[in-house]
């Protein structure tokens, strides 16, 4: 029962299905199992580590300089981007060659930047949310939400790209309509 409740909560707060963040990346991720795993892992790392950076920025940045939030988020994601690429490069050259495209794809993705701004907005509306743990968990659940949305799309990916779908609607258009229907179902859960 706990798992079902958690799953419903993850779906209801899903950034892709409720806020359309990172939709085009999701289409790439859902294309193959390899892409799904690679993109989902990297996006989760970015959203989680980025959320920790967002917490520090929110805590240290004075209110009067709030217009600089985007700049600081961009810089922090940039730093994560370089750290992740460098770490991967020094750990395994082969792994670096295989994985770097997912890092490039995920760094300045709407799913990542959108997560940081969504969490910030939440913290601004609810002071009790302004803790490192809350930011960390919110970042982690955003990544998990991306994985769930990608799995939902992967389940129908072949059919939405099959010859049975009219040529004009095959692929992206059908996937958008499909996501719309799933989003409608998720809307009912909220």
């Amino acid at each position, binding site marked *: 029962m706990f798992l079902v409740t958690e799953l419903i909560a993850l779906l209801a707060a899903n950034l892709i299905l409720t806020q359309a*963040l990172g939709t085009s990346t999701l289409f790439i991720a859902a294309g193959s199992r390899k892409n799904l795993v690679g993109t989902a892992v990297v996006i989760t790392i970015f959203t989680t580590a980025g959320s920790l950076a967002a917490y520090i920025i929110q805590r240290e940045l004075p209110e009067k300089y709030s217009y600089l939030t985007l700049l600081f988020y961009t810089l922090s994601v940039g730093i994560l981007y370089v750290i992740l690429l460098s770490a991967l490069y020094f750990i395994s050259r082969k792994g670096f060659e295989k994985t770097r495209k997912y890092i490039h794809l995920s760094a300045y993705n709407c799913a990542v930047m959108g997560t940081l701004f969504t969490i910030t907005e939440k913290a601004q509306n609810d002071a009790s949310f302004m803790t490192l743990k809350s930011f960390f968990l919110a970042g982690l659940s955003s990544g998990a939400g991306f994985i769930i949305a990608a799995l939902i799309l992967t389940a129908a990916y072949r059919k939405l790209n099959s010859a049975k779908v009219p040529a004009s609607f095959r692929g992206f258009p059908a996937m958008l309509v499909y996501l719309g229907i799933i989003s409608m179902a998720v809307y009912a859960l909220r």
Partner: protein
Amino acid sequence: MSNSRSSVFDGLLRENTVLSSLLVISPVIMCGDTLRNAEALVYAFSVITFFSVMIASFVPKKLPYAVKIIIYAVISSLIYIPVRIVTQEYFPGIVARIGIYFPLLAVNSLIVVQTETKFFRMKKLKMTFSLIFSILGFDAVMLLTAVIRELLAYGTINSKVVDMHTLISGLGMPFGGFIFLGLMCGLYRKIRSMAGYEDNKVRSEENVSGN
């Protein structure tokens, strides 16, 4: 000549930024439900993207891919600051209503992906025109979507009441945005195939594989 000319217009017609490449679709889905939102987003997107890409074109090409992308994102984040101030002046209340989608415009795919995969592979003049038409491609879809969704969902156009007997309120919701954009994509493809253009997958992971 004709090839070169058609490629300059690609972002608007043949390879529309939103309908074909599926770039910058979140604001269209989430905020493209009223003309007032769309006007503010079109203005912000156009100014931020144009100036960011133009300034970013002076960044040395020899830098590593990741470093260049970070610099482009920082440039657009800096341009975002005055744009936000002007938007608050001319579209009061809109920045709050658009919420997180406003700053997200500054890290849109046209700036952080298409610069390296498309624009900076062109000569400056051609790049400028191609960029303008790619921006116009987004603007056109955003405005068209907003007009139709506002009319059908709320029975208004630019907040002015229109005599509509049946409203589809779901079109004003995110799921309505997904479905409407999907239908528009399909229609766009149909028109494109009737015009004789081959259907090709524009955005793939190869586009962002980096160097």
